[in-house]
C-alpha cells in the first residue's frame, strides 16, 4: 500500500519548501518538549519540521495544545494568547511553533 500522502513525515508542503531536511537544535528541543508533555509515541527526531501538528499529521487536539502552551510558557517565559498571532499558524508545524517561541521567549 503506497498512500504516502497520508503520512505526515513525507508530506510536502509548497509553502514550506525551504525547510531544511533535518530539524535545527532548537526545533529538536521543542519537539522533545511536545513529546514529553504529551507522552507521544514518536521520538522527537521523528517529528518533521514542516509536518502539521494539528489535525492530520501529529494529530494534536485542543486539549494537547493547552498542555503544550502551559509547558512552553513555563520553559520560555511568555504566555500564548489566541489573538497574539494567527493561532492556527503557530501550531501549523514544529518550525512555525519554534519560530514563534524564538521570537517571544523571555528566557
Amino acid at each position, binding site marked *: *500500500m503506497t*498512500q504516502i500522502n*497520508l*503520512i*505526515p513525515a513525507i508530506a510536502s508542503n509548497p509553502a514550506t519548501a525551504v525547510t531544511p531536511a533535518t530539524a535545527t537544535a532548537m526545533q529538536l528541543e521543542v519537539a522533545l*518538549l511536545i*513529546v*514529553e*508533555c*504529551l*507522552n*507521544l*509515541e514518536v521520538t522527537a527526531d521523528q517529528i518533521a519540521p514542516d509536518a502539521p501538528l494539528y*489535525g*492530520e499529521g501529529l*494529530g494534536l*487536539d*485542543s*486539549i494537547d495544545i*493547552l*498542555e503544550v*502552551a*502551559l*509547558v512552553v*510558557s*513555563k520553559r520560555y517565559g511568555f*504566555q*500564548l*494568547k*489566541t*489573538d497574539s498571532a494567527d493561532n492556527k499558524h503557530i501550531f501549523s508545524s514544529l518550525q512555525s511553533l519554534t519560530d514563534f517561541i524564538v521570537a517571544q521567549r523571555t528566557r
Partner: protein
Amino acid sequence: MPPILPLLPLVVHPSPDNIIAWCDDGSVTRQQFLADVNQLAASLLPGGHLLNACGDRYRFSVGLAAAIVAGKVSLLPPAHTTEMVRQLKTFAPDVFCLTDNDDCTLDMPQLRYPIMSANENTTFAVPQIDPNQLIAIVFTSGSTGEPSPHHKTWGALVSSVQAEASRLGLLDNALPCTLIGTVPSQHMYGFESTVLMAWQSGHALSHAQPFYPADICRALTNAQAPRILVSSPVHLRALMDAELAMPEIACVVSATAPLSLTLAQSIEARWQAPLIEIYGSTETGLIATRRATQNLQWELLPGIKLVVDGDNTYACGSHIVTQIVMNDIIEPLTAEFFLLHGRLSDLVNIAGKRHSLASLNYLLNTIPGVVDGVFYMPDENDARVISHASHASHASHTLRTSEVTRLAACVVAPGVTSAQLLAALREHIDVVFLPRPLLFVDVLPRNDTGKLPRAALQALFQPAQISRKSA
C-alpha cells in the same frame, strides 16, 4: 406553565439600558441586543434549521435569539466533522449555517454574521415565546454511529436554567454579574449555563470564548465584577497551573466531569470563592449541583427526582418531561442527595464530549483493511501508568492526565499504517476520541466465546507491551 415566557424576563432585565453583554468595545444594552436580534432575524436564510457556528458568545446569543424570533430551530451537534455535517444535512436538508469566521469551511449554505447598525431610536419589545416552541435540537453520538437528536423546548430550557440560577444564588444578587465562559456556547453546558442563564437571570455575558490561560485572564479582566467563571476541569487546571495574576472572581462553576477534590480546594483557596459543580447531561440538561469542598454528595435541583430500576437510574420531574436514563452509576442517598460513581461502561466522556464505545468499535471495524479492532478506555490509574511509561522525564509531573484520561485502541490491520487509520477515523469522530496509543497486533486477545475480557486488554496496554509493540 404560563402561556408565554419572555426572552428576557422584565423582572431581571427591567430597563432598555440593562447590560446584556460585554464585548471588546464595551457593553451592549438590552436595547442594542434586541436591535441586533431584529436585524439578524430579518436576514436569516429561508431554511427552518440553523447551525449556529459563531465562536463569539455574544454573536451566538444574537443568532440564537434571532432564530427563536423567526421560528427556526438551532442545531447543536457535538462536533463539526465532515461526517457530522453530512448527517446534519440528512437530518434537516434545509439547514444553513451562521458563522462569524471568514474561513468557515462547513459544507452547507452559509450566512456571515452581519455588521450591525447602531440603533438608538427605535424601541424593541422583548419577544414573548411560547413555552412549547422547539428552540434547539442537541445531538449526542448514538450507539449505531448516527447522532441522536434531543429536542429542547423553550419552556423546559427556561425552567432548567432558572433552577440553576436560583441554586447558584444569582436571582437575588443586588449587583449585576458578568458570566465568563470557557466552554463553547454550542455545548449543552455552555448553552445553558452562559447564554440562557445570562438571559434568564438578569446578568451579562462576556462575548469571549477564551482558550489559553492568558485569554481567560484577559476575558476576566475585561469583564465587569462581580465575575462568575463558567468552566471545566481541563481549563481550570490549566488556569491554576499557569499561575497568572488574576482579578477577583465571585464564583467558579464547573461541569463536564467531576473535579478532583485537590483541584477544587486549590481553586477555592486561590479566589476565596465557592466552586460549584454542575451535573447533568445533554438529554436532561442540568439536574444537580455540589460544592465538593463541603460535601461530596450532589444535591438535586428542586422538583427533580431519581428513580432506580435495576441497574439503571432515571431522572424525571420539573423540566424533564419524560423520564430519562442517566449514563452514570448513581447511588441515591435521600430524595435530594446522591453520589456519583463514574460512567456506565459503554460510554466515554473526554473533556465533556461523549461517545459510545460500541459505536467507536463499530466505526473502527468498518475502516478498509481493519480485520479486527477495539477501543479501550483505561481506568484513571492505568492511564497514568500508560502515559508515563514511555519515558521518565521532568515534564511528566506537570499534572498531565490528572484531569483527562484518553482512549486507547488495538487493531489487527496488516498493511494499514497508523496515519491512514487515524485519518480514516478523523473523518467520523471528534479528534479527542482518537486513540493514543494505537497498537497494531497480530490478533486480539479474544476468549473462547469471542469476547474481549477487560483484563486481557488491560494487560495489552501495560507499559512493557506498549514500548515493544509501538516501537
